[in-house]
């Protein structure tokens, strides 16, 4: 099967700087027009039956893309299986909920703080967990995700099972209003975050951390023999992934205005992981595409109510059989086959 990602990379390589900049700007412009896609005749089939298309674009589509990009740093770049990623999303969301309702902070003030809290929890989890490998790491992270939810469920400060209501939207900036009447503004905000994260990941990937993550993913012992401080670099990927999850959580809470512990169950972690694997683990464009589709699809087929979960599962199974490396797989040579490992 042709690899669209490799083809795309090939074409990109032949372009000079102005051409690349123009392409990026035009792509961003069209991404910015997405909220109006369903208003246009030929693409009106995109409309979602229950929740409006523009709101679906913000949540789940935009949020899932953001989280999948964050999880991809951990799972795709450094090859660590994290099954409790929802924890950081929850921590971000509760930071926004509590700091805004109890202390009157605006989303813009909470955002950096929420990110730092998420990073700190990532460090707290990572320091003991990252000494373990493979299955053990997966189980510990899974446990961490559940612990965060159970704490939220059982403490007074977090509102227990009812959660927190009355979370304010972010205040307007430069005429952009982030409220129910302006989902497109909200989408642009999320889009901006996504672009920022993509830019950050691309920066990292070409520098030392990217090299170290790649080496750790391919062979952790050998990476250590090369002088890579594996614990520190694994921790960094964990903490950066946590930061993105936390940021997504802050925005999410400020959008939905009511949060409760049952929004942060294990299935969210699995769904985000599915987005990463479905789109193409390790490749940010694949991850964006995968998360976009998997987030959007359930809302599009909501009219068939109960059967939609089954259809969703079927699509996943069929696609993973047809394209086991995802829609847009990572660079071919970055794949490790058992054969070449020997």
């Amino acid at each position: 099967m042709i690899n669209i990602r490799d083809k795309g990379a090939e074409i990109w390589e032949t372009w000079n700087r102005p051409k690349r900049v123009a392409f990026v700007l035009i792509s961003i412009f069209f991404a910015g027009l997405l909220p109006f896609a369903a208003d246009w005749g030929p693409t009106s089939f995109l409309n979602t039956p229950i929740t409006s298309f523009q709101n679906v674009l913000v949540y789940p589509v935009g949020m899932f893309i953001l989280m999948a990009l964050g999880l991809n740093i951990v799972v795709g770049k450094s090859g660590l299986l994290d099954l409790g990623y929802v924890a950081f999303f929850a921590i971000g969301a509760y930071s926004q909920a509590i700091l805004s309702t109890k202390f009157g902070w605006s989303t813009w003030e909470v955002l950096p703080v929420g990110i730092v809290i998420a990073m700190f929890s990532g460090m707290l989890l990572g320091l003991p967990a990252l000494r373990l490998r493979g299955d053990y790491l997966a189980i510990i992270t899974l446990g961490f995700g559940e612990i965060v939810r159970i704490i939220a469920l059982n403490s007074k400060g977090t509102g227990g099972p009812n959660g927190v209501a009355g979370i304010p939207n972010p205040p307007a900036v430069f005429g952009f209003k982030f409220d129910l009447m302006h989902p497109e503004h909200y989408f642009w905000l999320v889009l901006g975050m996504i672009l920022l994260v993509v830019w950050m990941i691309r920066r990292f990937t070409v520098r030392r951390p990217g090299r170290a993550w790649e080496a750790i993913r391919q062979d952790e012992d050998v990476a250590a023999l090369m002088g890579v401080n594996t614990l520190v670099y694994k921790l960094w990927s964990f903490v950066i992934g946590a930061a993105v999850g936390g940021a997504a959580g802050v925005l999410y809470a400020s959008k939905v205005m009511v949060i409760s512990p049952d929004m942060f169950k294990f299935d969210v972690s699995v769904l985000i992981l599915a987005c990463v694997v479905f789109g193409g683990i390790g490749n940010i464009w694949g991850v964006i595409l995968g998360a976009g589709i998997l987030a959007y699809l359930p809302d599009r087929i909501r009219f068939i109510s109960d059967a939609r979960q089954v259809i969703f599962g079927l699509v996943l199974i069929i696609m993973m059989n047809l394209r086991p490396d995802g829609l847009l797989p990572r660079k071919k040579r970055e794949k490790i086959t058992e054969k070449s490992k020997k």
Partner: protein
Amino acid sequence: MRLEIKDLRVHYGKIEAIKGISVVVNQGEIVTLIGANGAGKTTTLKTISGLRKVSSGAILFDGQDISKVPAHERVDLGISQAPEGRGIFPGMTVLENLEMGKFNRKDRKSEMKEDLDRIYTLFPRLKERTAQAGGTLSGGEQQMLAIGRALMARPKVLLLDEPSMGLAPMMIANIFKIITTINTELGTTILLVEQNAQQALQRAHRAYVLETGKVVKEAKASDLLNDPDVRAAYLGTGAAAH
């Protein structure tokens, strides 16, 4: 440079794989550690490079006990390893693999080029394949890459774990020749682990024979080549001599 292993013991869980061995490697030597499969050769090298923990005993590097130093810092001290089974990064190009070998050295660009030139002179084959993915190289080329990558860090002592494993006879001869070249021309001290005792003993100055985690013999390599026990057990020619 002097590497000294003193009464080293290493465990996998409850099983003792290394049962109190002592090995010395002096500046400029090629020392070989021969032994059958499962004797503990790989475990010994992994312990020297820090991938396995010491249960008791010491690893002295220039007189300092380094057994508590983490693996990634031992490279900076001057200990580099080409691991068993080559352990190259299959998804990185030859050049990227070599650059990984210098991960911690903040040398200037010119020094990186110098090091690369040194490796490419030693292994012209790698130069031809510089942009090729490591995983697509032949076994012999992968071994060259593993050795070249270890040399990028300018080690004081180079640890080689069965460099001849799984290679064709022509390539084996080639690799052993290069091992001597590295020792004589770059002046790198080498600790060579091998099952191919014939070749290893011909190239080394001194040798240790390892059996189930214990050193059972220690002598000049040339003496071991003529030792009847060693010939019988490792060179497959001993039976006729008895």
